[in-house]
C-alpha cells in the first residue's frame, strides 16, 4: 500500500485517475478498523487533508462551505455554525470520542456509507449539497443521493467529495438530532432521528424528518413531515395527536435488521420515541431561537 498526500484537487484527480483501486481518506476512523478486520488494503491511499480547500469552513452571503475533510470537532467548536445547525452539530459531536472527532470528517462519515452514520440524517434534513470532483470538473448533488446501501455510494471511480454547501436556515428554523446507543458514548447508533422545523409564529410551515440506522441508508419520512406541517406549537410544545402521528410515521418508515446492536421491534419503537423528542427540541429551538 502506498500513501500519497496531494495538495490540490487537480493533483488528487490525476492520482486517482492514474491508480485505479486507490482510495481517498480523511480520518480513516472507519477504514483502519476495516483493514484490520481483513478488508484488503487499497493499493494507493490518497490523504485529502493536505488540500486546504477540503479543510476550510467559510460562511459568506448566506451560505456555508465546509471542506469534506474538515474534522468534526472543527464544526462542533464553531459557535456560529452550531447556533444555525444545532442538530447537525449534535450529530457530528456524537461520532465517537474526542479522539475520533478530531479526525472523522463529514465526507468520510458520508462516503463510508454506514446506515448508522450520525451526521447524515441531519445533513439531509438541512438539504446539504455535496460538491463532487469528477474526472475533469465538479458536480453537485443533494447528500441524500450519495449513499446507496451499506458500504456503497453513487460516486464513480476517481470521484471524491470536495466540500459541502448549505444555505443559512430561513428565520424561525432549527433542527435537532437524537440517537439511541446502549452506553452514553463510543457506540454505533441503534436508531438516529433528525428533525428540522420552520415556524411562523406558532404554526409549522416547513419540516424535514430523516432517520438513521433503521434502513440500508438514511431514510426521509414524508408522512412525518406531513404530520408536522400546519401543526401549531404553543410554548414550544406540539400537541399530542400530531406527536403520535409523527411517531407512528417514523416507526412505519423503518426497514431495519436484527443485528448485534438491536432488534427490528426495538428499532421501530425507539424511532418513534426519538423522532417525537427531536421534534419537541427542534420546535423549542425554532420558536424561541434557542
Amino acid at each position, binding site marked *: 500500500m502506498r*500513501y500519497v498526500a496531494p495538495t490540490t484537487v487537480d493533483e488528487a484527480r490525476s492520482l486517482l485517475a492514474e491508480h485505479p483501486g486507490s482510495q481517498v481518506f480523511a480520518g480513516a476512523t472507519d477504514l483502519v478498523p476495516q483493514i484490520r478486520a481483513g478488508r484488503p488494503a487499497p493499493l494507493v491511499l490518497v490523504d485529502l487533508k493536505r488540500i486546504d480547500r477540503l479543510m476550510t469552513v467559510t460562511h459568506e452571503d448566506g451560505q456555508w462551505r465546509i471542506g469534506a475533510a474538515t474534522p468534526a470537532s472543527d464544526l462542533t467548536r464553531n459557535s456560529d455554525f452550531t447556533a444555525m445547525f444545532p442538530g447537525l452539530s449534535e450529530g457530528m459531536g456524537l461520532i*465517537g470520542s474526542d479522539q*475520533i472527532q478530531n479526525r472523522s470528517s463529514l465526507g468520510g462519515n458520508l462516503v463510508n456509507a454506514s446506515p448508522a452514520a450520525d451526521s447524515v440524517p441531519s445533513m439531509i434534513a438541512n438539504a446539504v449539497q455535496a460538491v463532487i470532483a469528477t474526472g475533469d470538473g465538479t458536480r453537485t448533488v443533494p447528500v441524500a443521493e450519495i449513499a446507496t446501501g451499506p458500504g456503497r455510494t453513487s460516486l464513480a471511480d476517481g470521484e471524491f467529495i470536495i466540500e459541502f454547501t448549505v444555505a443559512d436556515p430561513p428565520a424561525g428554523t432549527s433542527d435537532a438530532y437524537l440517537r439511541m446507543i446502549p452506553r452514553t458514548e463510543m457506540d454505533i447508533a441503534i436508531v438516529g432521528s433528525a428533525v428540522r422545523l420552520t415556524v411562523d409564529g406558532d404554526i409549522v410551515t416547513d419540516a424535514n424528518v430523516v432517520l438513521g440506522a433503521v434502513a440500508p441508508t438514511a431514510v426521509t419520512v414524508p408522512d412525518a413531515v406531513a404530520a408536522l406541517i400546519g401543526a401549531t406549537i404553543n410554548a414550544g410544545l406540539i400537541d399530542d395527536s400530531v406527536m403520535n402521528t409523527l411517531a407512528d410515521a417514523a416507526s412505519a418508515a423503518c426497514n431495519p435488521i436484527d443485528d448485534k446492536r438491536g432488534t427490528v421491534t426495538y428499532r421501530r419503537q425507539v424511532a418513534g420515541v426519538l423522532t417525537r423528542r427531536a421534534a419537541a427540541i427542534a420546535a423549542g429551538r425554532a420558536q424561541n431561537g434557542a
Partner: protein
Amino acid sequence: MSRTHITCTVNGDPVDFLASDDTSLLDALRDELGLTGAKEGCGTGDCGACSVLIDGRLNCSCLVFAPEAEGSDIVTVEGIADGDRLHPLQQTFLEGAALQCGICTPGVLIAAKALLDENPDPTETEIRYALAGNLCRCTGYDKIIRSVQEAAVRLKGVVR
C-alpha cells in the same frame, strides 16, 4: 512495501524515521522511536490507550498512518513532564491513586491534558465525556475523575 522517510517533532525534539506506508503512527512511535508510552489496547480507535497529541489535538495514534505525521508536532506521555518536574495531572494521578495496572494511564493523561488545555475549569460531566474515549477496567474511573478535578484546581492556581 517501500518505506517512507518521515520528519516531525516528538516531545519537542526533531526526529526522523523510516516506516512503511501502512504502519500506524502508534507502531512507528513504539517500534521505530522506542517510545512505548502509548499502548495498543485495541488497534481500532475504541479504547484510547494509544492517545497522543498531534499539533495540539487529541488523536488515537493507532488510526493515523505514519506518513501523515510528516511535519507535525507530536506529544506523547513521555513528553508532558517538564524535565523531572511532573505535570500536575501526573502528580494528582499518583497522589489520588488514579491508576492501578497503569496500561490506560498514558492515554488518559494525554486526553486529560487535551481537555484542560482547552477547558481549564471543566465540570465532572465534562471530564467524564472528555475521557469517554479512554477505557479503564481497573479503577471504575472514580479516582481518575477526582484527580483531573484536583489537577484543574492546581493548574488554575499557577499563572499561565
